[in-house]
């Protein structure tokens, strides 16, 4: 019997964030209006993606030191699920940007950085499919993954901070400052982030366990 408690925790946290996210009061800000509630749903997608990419790079390093195929399988499944969350983040972000920033894809360093990062991780999956030999594939893709990860961090978190960005937390102003978020919002936002991260990990473990059974046969 696998431990199920954290899966119920994940479901409960996101469930709470859905109810709280729609019904609890939010700061009344111009331009944003009610769309400020997107904070509870759009941003946790990116948090889940980052966590999955971190897991992926950790297991890529582990693979290089151990040479065990299951580490490689976990690394690739983390990226597979991370890409899904990335897609959700991009689509929801475009919908949100359309009403607040006036166009779905304004020329913003964070957006362009995320596009490049997405392409990088898609290239990782393409690279894997291009190599036939199992060990070679695992080793080359692990090295690629280790190089891709810091570039992704730079594209998403460092370059947007150096220039002006439309996103809060960039161009000098701190993220999640008291200007944008009050206590009620935090009480919904952090559980939502944790819940979605756990759900991302849960889906990854499902895919990984399935992949492992498939590989052992």
């Amino acid at each position, binding site marked *: *019997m696998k431990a199920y408690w954290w899966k119920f925790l994940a479901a409960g946290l996101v469930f709470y964030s859905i109810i709280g996210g729609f019904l609890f009061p939010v700061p009344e800000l111009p331009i944003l209006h009610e769309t400020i509630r997107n904070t509870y749903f759009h941003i946790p997608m990116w948090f889940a993606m980052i966590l999955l990419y971190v897991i992926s790079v950790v297991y890529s390093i582990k693979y290089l030191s151990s040479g065990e195929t299951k580490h490689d399988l976990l690394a690739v499944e983390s990226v597979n699920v991370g890409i899904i969350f990335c897609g959700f983040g991009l689509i929801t972000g475009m919908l949100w940007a359309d009403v607040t920033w006036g166009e779905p894809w304004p020329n913003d360093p964070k957006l362009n950085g995320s596009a490049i990062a997405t392409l990088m991780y898609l290239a990782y999956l393409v690279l894997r499919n291009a190599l036939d030999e199992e060990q070679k594939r695992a080793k080359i893709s692990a090295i690629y993954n280790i190089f891709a990860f810091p570039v992704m961090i730079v594209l998403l978190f460092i370059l947007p901070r150096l220039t002006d960005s439309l996103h809060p937390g960039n161009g000098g102003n701190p993220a999640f400052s008291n200007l944008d978020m009050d206590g009620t919002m935090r009480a919904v936002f952090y559980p939502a982030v944790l819940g979605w991260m756990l759900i991302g990990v849960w889906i990854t473990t499902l895919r990984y366990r399935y992949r492992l059974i498939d590989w*052992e046969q």
Partner: protein
Amino acid sequence: MKKLILLVLLGLTSFFHSFAQSSNDVEMADVLRSSGKIYVVVAVVCVIFVGFIIYLFTIDRKISRLENKKK
């Protein structure tokens, strides 16, 4: 004298105008909330999410069964 009164009035209007533009005037979906229709939306999203979670649990159980069978 007339000019002074006009000036004071002008000053007052701009003073009240600045109040009118404070954050209390931001348009929020208050009607949706007071009519209670927002609960319908919340219920719909909750149903979808609970269904999604149940689906994940069934997949989880199925994989566990497969793992047990292999051992």
